[in-house]
């Protein structure tokens, strides 16, 4: 099932169910299609697809890294995190991080942070980059304790913050 939504991202079934329930709430409170369309537009802007911040530790990490800057998401050309939906061995989970953002001295991706919500040490890695790399494409392998969201969040030299998220189902605990 794929449905195209106004901001141009493919919708998976999970998001569709969430959106549908939000729209249903909107319909209950107001009449007509326009209200539900308005609500859908709002949820798109605020990141319908974004995972909730699960606890104070993640909230603190995000605040220390990005302060009050908005963490934008939903544009795979700016930040794409590619991980398996199911990781049978949590000791070795592949990660691919890619961005098409420019890498010029005037404007470049200066850091990519990898945060695993329910790992013992959630801020797993920081990759500090320079324009000399030319392209943002990083691959590595990480450990995951259990099923959780993984956040890849980049910041540019001009202060923009872009994120992508992956929900990974972990079968075997890789952290002890």
């Amino acid at each position, binding site marked *: 099932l794929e449905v195209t939504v106004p901001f141009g991202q493919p919708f998976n079934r999970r998001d569709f169910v969430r959106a549908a329930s939000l729209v249903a709430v909107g319909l209950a409170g107001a009449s007509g299609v326009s209200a539900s369309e308005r609500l859908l537009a709002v949820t798109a802007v605020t990141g319908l697809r974004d995972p909730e911040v699960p606890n104070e530790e993640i909230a603190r990490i995000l605040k220390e890294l990005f302060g009050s800057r908005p963490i934008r998401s939903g544009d795979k050309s700016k930040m794409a995190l590619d991980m398996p939906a199911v990781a049978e061995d949590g*000791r070795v989970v592949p990660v691919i991080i890619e961005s098409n953002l420019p890498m010029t001295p005037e404007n470049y991706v200066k850091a990519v942070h990898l945060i695993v919500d329910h790992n*013992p040490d959630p801020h797993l*890695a*920081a*990759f*500090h980059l320079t324009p*000399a790399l030319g392209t943002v*494409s990083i691959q*590595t392998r990480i450990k995951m304790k259990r099923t959780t969201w993984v956040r890849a969040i980049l910041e540019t030299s001009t202060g923009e913050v872009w994120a992508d998220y992956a929900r990974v189902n972990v079968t075997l605990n890789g*952290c002890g």
Partner: protein
Amino acid sequence: MSSAVGDARIRLPDRIARGDAVIVNSIISHPMDTGFFRTAEGQPIPAWFIKNVVVTYGGQEIARFEWTSGISRDPVVSFMLKADKEAPLTMVWTDNKGSTFTKSVDVTFASA
């Protein structure tokens, strides 16, 4: 992996032309112990992991990675490089015990 701790490899494409965007693949042998595990005899295994990787190209720092023990055993990392000069590409891995491991490869351009 049977190699000794700190054994590292960096792989570049066989043929590189000036200005190419090339992929750099690296691996280093390291246990990346989290400190959460115990031996079969019940002794705790202390944390021992690569915490810092510095990449230089022609002596200039072009990337720096800060890691935790959440990176898998025998860490691999791949990244892109804009090959705009013939110069050594060097990676220095530093672990939480202060050991450093260095590997260098030369970026050279194939003559057409």
